[in-house]
């Protein structure tokens, strides 16, 4: 038998055995009806996933709160530093002027107003 005959025989159209189509359809239907055992569909795993999300959210919230607190602290300390500095500078300025006045130079005008 030469190659040409072998190929012809191999490629010869052949009918499927009886009931082949029915068996394929039945198996496909059976697979569709079977419950899928995917891990995330298990109740325990769902609960664990929700718990993990809750913990992550709580940690993120705590971290954000901590960051907010640190920012508020820094801003407050800077504000107090500036406010204190301005008050101090004014006190020094008044002292200088009063000292100058005491020295009778009297070039600048300053007055302490009554409360």
């Amino acid at each position, binding site marked *: 038998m030469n190659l040409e005959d072998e190929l012809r025989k191999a490629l010869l159209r052949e009918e499927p055995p009886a009931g082949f189509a029915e068996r394929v359809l039945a198996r496909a239907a059976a697979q569709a009806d079977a419950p899928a055992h995917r891990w995330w569909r298990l109740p325990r795993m769902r609960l664990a996933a929700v718990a993990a999300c809750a913990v992550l959210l709580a940690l993120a919230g705590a971290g954000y709160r901590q960051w907010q*607190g640190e920012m508020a602290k820094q801003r407050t300390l*800077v504000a107090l530093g*500036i406010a204190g500095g301005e008050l101090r*500078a004014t006190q020094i*300025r008044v002292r200088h002027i009063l000292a100058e006045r005491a020295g009778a130079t009297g070039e600048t005008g300053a007055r302490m107003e009554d409360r």
Partner: protein
Amino acid sequence: MRRVNWFGILVLCCAATAAGAQTCPFNLDHVAAKAKESVDITLDSTVLQLAGRFLSAADANQSDAKSLLNGLKAICVRNYEFAKEGEYTPDDLQRVRNQLRPPLWNRIVNVQEKNESSEVFTRTEGGRITGFAVIAAEAKELHVVYIDGPIDLDKLSRFGGQFGIPPIPAPDAARKPSK
């Protein structure tokens, strides 16, 4: 079924916005726009309370700051440095002063020199200081500090030059007082 009261939420949001806007009784945004450098700090009571919780009682300076924050409702700091003179007007200063008028507020210090002025205002209620403000103006600088709430000025003045803030020199600091 629970129904969301959207109108109530809207009213609350508006009230919160209005409260935020009232933290500082003055607006210097138009001056800030012309500044070469600016420091703009607005702290309302919520932020101050939060900061107070994060200040360490173990650290002496932070402990002082914590005690200073007790009862404070707001701190506003506006520091502007300009590239040239005349970037703010006397009207800008007057608008700030208008918020610090008697009978609530009193100007306890008023230093007027050539191109420089310093004013300190306090609000006194029941014999104690419940508000403090400073307006310090120079040709190219404008500093406004406003504190709403009971404040110990002696303690506050000790904070100058702390927490990484360089001490603010008096403009005539170089000039030695005559003895």
